[in-house]
């Protein structure tokens, strides 16, 4: 028996205050209130979280894996964006 599909929600949890929310999985739920409840039951049974976000999966816009090189590869040649690219004499000390 396949019935009406429950909407899917992506779950993000903040492990403790000061840290960002991180994606941890998904749940099925008819609305946001129940999605939060399900996320709490499924992903935080052992004190993993102090805060939960749920977002409708359909609302996530992702980059195309095929564009990976085009999007991210150019940065690997821009070594001058890193501090170690620049030579500072030892006698100047830590900079």
């Amino acid at each position, binding site marked *: 028996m*396949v*019935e009406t599909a*429950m909407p899917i929600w992506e779950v993000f949890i903040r492990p403790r205050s000061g840290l960002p929310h991180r994606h941890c*999985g*998904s*749940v099925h739920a008819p609305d946001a209130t*129940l999605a939060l409840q399900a996320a709490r*039951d499924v992903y935080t049974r052992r004190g993993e979280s102090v805060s939960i976000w749920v977002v409708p999966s359909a609302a996530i816009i*992702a980059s195309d*894996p095929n564009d990976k090189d085009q999007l991210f590869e150019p940065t690997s040649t821009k070594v001058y964006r890193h501090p170690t690219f620049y030579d500072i004499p030892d006698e100047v000390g830590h900079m």
Partner: protein
Amino acid sequence: MYTQALNTKDTSDTSRPGDSARLAVFQATIDAEDKIEANDWMPEAYRRTLVRQISQHAHSEVIGMQPEGNWLTRAPSLRRKAALLAKIQDEAGHGLYLYAAAETLGVRREELYAQLLSGKAKYSSIFNYPTETWADIGVIGWLVDGAAIMNQIPLCRCSYGPYARAMIRVCKEESFHQRQGYEIMLTLCRGTAAQKAMAQDALNRWWWPALMMFGPSDTDSIHSADSVRWKIKRFSNDELRQRFIDATVPQGLHLGLTFPDPALRLDEASGHWQHGEIDWAEFKRVLAGGGPMNAQRLAHRRQTEDDGAWVREAALAFAEKRRQAKVTRVAAE
């Protein structure tokens, strides 16, 4: 293991032009120990193998709640009851992590669930045995979860990212399951003669089914080559079974129990415990639906699904009503 019914080779060919180049990238990614992610290109056979493996694994977690639930209201103390309830909740959670991982491959949970309820999809043979006494709860934690851990630790390095991440979560939680089971056994074995006899009886009944969890012997396992190449499977059934036996036999001896295998002996030269022949006819019978509890497990699952249908319908209807009310309110403003 939880996916021991995967003993069929996927032979259908759905390749398209340009796939050979993509296949080379795919295999190179795996060979480099990188992960394949949900949106990456993958061969259809890889996708299908994973859907079947992950969903069988999920079904096993879900059905696995039943044998333990049988003792929930009869746990001997509040401490044991709280631990058992937490363990059963974990099994539900594990099922959900796994269904979520399977869904990243483009199938719907409802479809997978329908396959379980129709009997089309399999789940581990181990859950088709009855839990006759409280000691069975101890043995399940110790042996069944112990065997599951042995199988699942290599799966944490599976090439498919969402599955590997789900397994990491599962493995962290399984450790408590095994320890609480062993503690139950320890308590029974240090108790009265009757309690110790109950522990021995449970071990006698569950030892061979636990060994069968690792699936057919390597000589009869026909699906492995692809799974090995794709780094879904890293160790053979027999390798994992041997590791489990080597780890478990000393634990049983520590309890002062004996194993129901007259051929079991330590091979001094190799350091491995050698075991007697497994009854593969029983394994096949139970997997095919002929175990003592198959019919009841599925009947119970279907009943639960039917009983809960009105709740899901009501919750969806309520969400829809709220959405409509919001649309009307916004339109009025």
